[in-house]
């Protein structure tokens, strides 16, 4: 036991065995009310949450953990006799383990188990209302973060998961053995629909598999959504004929109401799009509704995680993105933005790899350096295609493929559209870099170390790649990440 452990008093303080004391009107400590059970052995059907908690000064960490268990399940601030009308032992979540966070004084990891009866079948809204509901505003805690979650197979099986999944997506697109390539249309705002379609056509004809609406492209005054869909689909079909490949463009159907979202999705379907796009900000129930719609209409669902940084980024408070990724896989999306590690947006490489595992694994193994606290059996649930997007370019292709493998969509927005010789040239540079690195890796080359040299060699037969490597040779976003593992020093890729 290390010195900081001794500060935690973990003894059993539960009064539930003595109903008289337990149910006398008044206020008890949470740890006295049955929410702290250090001897509890979680069962197969329990959901287990790992919270990072920062108790207020003077608050006992075990009491804080018990309070988290209480406030995320049955407890209110005072004893209520109506508990005795229920099988209340089942409904109480049980904190059963508390440990100090390595190297961060004042923070503790708390393990809490939840009985399967606590959650409605197939409803992320219900799960989140419990687990990240009132508890996160609870005064005795300075901060709380849901770090990871283990859900039982019995609960997983109540969700349908991704409507398409990455395996079937590849079959529909006829694209195998390499990452997919995409780009977000830029500038984000202001293009007329006709100009917008031009960017789509050039990118797809040049060699990208997908183009993409940005998260805040909905139906603003400069471009009505129907105009956008019509011009984009003209570009997609024209590029498909020009290349002989299946092409797509994520049509963002996010709108103010469900009626708007359904109307936009129906039009995308009528026009023959293979994919629609949703922004995370539409909410869990809307996401699950659209997942059902997509399953009925053979549609791939692209999820942009707009807004997640407000609650995932800071380590002491909020919800880890690995938990969000698990919930989104259950809720049913096919693509999910999960970070680049090397690009412009937050993301420590190993932590980001942890998110990818959650999207793509059949069975996720505990892996503390990657932030994965639990084994998770996915019970054959379809897999989500992770998307790496934001500030990446062709010169990083070897790093991206080394970090993420084949089952990923690499999106080079600025790295395509900002190419000095034009959008098609930008697309060519990315596609040639991609195929070159995949081929070299399969041939047994050490792409992580030899990547730059392999790319330079390919640039000898591909001028657009040469120009791309030259233009962005010094661009990297090598800042320290805020959300990193507590269990290993994490190497930087740059």
């Amino acid at each position: 036991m290390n010195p900081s452990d001794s500060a935690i008093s973990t003894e059993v303080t539960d009064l539930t065995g003595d109903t008289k004391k337990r149910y006398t009107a008044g206020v008890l400590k949470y740890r006295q009310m049955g929410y702290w059970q250090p001897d509890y052995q979680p069962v197969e059907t329990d959901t287990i949450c790992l919270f990072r908690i920062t108790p207020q000064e003077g608050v006992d960490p075990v009491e804080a953990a018990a309070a988290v268990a209480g406030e995320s399940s049955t407890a209110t601030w005072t004893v209520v006799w109506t508990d005795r009308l229920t099988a209340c032992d089942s409904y109480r979540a049980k904190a059963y383990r508390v440990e100090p966070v390595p190297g961060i004084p004042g923070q503790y990891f708390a393990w809490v188990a939840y009985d399967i009866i606590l959650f409605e079948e197939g409803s992320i809204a219900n799960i989140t209302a419990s687990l990240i509901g009132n508890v996160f505003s609870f005064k005795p805690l300075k901060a709380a973060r849901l770090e990871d979650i283990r859900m039982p197979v019995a609960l997983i099986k109540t969700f349908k998961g991704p409507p398409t999944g990455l395996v079937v997506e590849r079959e529909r697109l006829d694209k195998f053995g390499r990452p997919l390539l995409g780009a977000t249309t830029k500038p984000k705002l202001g293009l007329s629909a006709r100009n917008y379609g031009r960017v789509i056509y050039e990118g797809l004809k040049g060699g990208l598999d997908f183009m993409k609406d940005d998260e805040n492209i909905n139906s603003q005054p400069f471009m009505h959504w129907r105009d956008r869909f019509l011009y984009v689909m003209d570009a997609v079909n024209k590029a498909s004929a020009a290349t002989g490949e299946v092409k797509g463009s994520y049509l963002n159907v996010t709108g103010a109401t469900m009626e708007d979202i359904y109307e936009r999705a129906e039009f995308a379907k009528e026009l023959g799009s293979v994919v629609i796009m949703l922004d995370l900000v539409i909410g869990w129930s809307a996401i699950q509704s659209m997942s059902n719609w997509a399953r009925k209409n053979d549609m791939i669902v692209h999820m942009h995680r707009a807004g997640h940084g407000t609650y995932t980024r800071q380590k002491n408070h909020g919800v880890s993105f690995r938990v969000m990724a698990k919930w989104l896989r259950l809720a049913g999306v096919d693509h999910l933005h999960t970070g680049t590690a090397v690009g412009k947006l937050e993301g420590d490489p190993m932590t980001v790899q942890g998110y990818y595992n959650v999207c793509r694994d059949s069975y996720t193994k505990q892996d503390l350096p990657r932030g994965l606290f639990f084994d998770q059996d996915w019970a054959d649930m379809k897999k989500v295609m992770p998307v790496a997007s934001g500030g990446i370019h062709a010169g990083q292709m070897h790093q991206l493929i080394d970090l993420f493998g084949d089952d990923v969509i690499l999106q080079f927005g600025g790295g395509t559209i900002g190419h000095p010789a034009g959008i098609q040239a930008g697309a060519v540079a990315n596609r040639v870099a991609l195929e070159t690195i995949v081929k070299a890796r399969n041939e047994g080359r050490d792409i992580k170390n030899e990547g730059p040299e392999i790319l330079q060699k390919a640039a000898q037969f591909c001028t657009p790649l040469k120009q791309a490597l030259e233009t962005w040779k010094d661009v990297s976003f090598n800042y320290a990440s805020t959300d990193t593992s507590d269990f290993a020093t994490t190497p930087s890729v740059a």
Partner: protein
Amino acid sequence: MMTNPTGQITQGQFSFLPDLSDAEIRMQIDYGLAKGYAWSIEYTDDPHPRNTYWEMFGMPMFDLQDAAGVMLELDSCRKTFPTHYIRLMAFDSTRGVESIAMSFIVNRPPSEPGFSLVRQEVQGRSIRYTVHGYASDNPEGKRY
């Protein structure tokens, strides 16, 4: 001649690279074999992007562990169909995958006319699109 930057159909893993030599093809086959995939050879003279089922040149080679064997089959396919599209496909039977893991073109016709886009104007501003191969109006076997 197609007007995309490669001048050819860009299906498969390596269509943007110079044609793979036989030695390079063999390295890709070895990579797949090491992963436990089964290789298969397919050919067609209808490379429409939605034409899923190319003809199988024999069954997938489930028990074959040597790239030389796949290359022999490929040679034989190339001799039989010298101007067809031929692709190598690797199947992964792992639970949760059970699909194609690799796919790349290893033979093409000498010239690739590509596809036209047929537009049918329908209600409002909507258009129904058909991708139509210039060569596909000829009967099978007489297209390239």
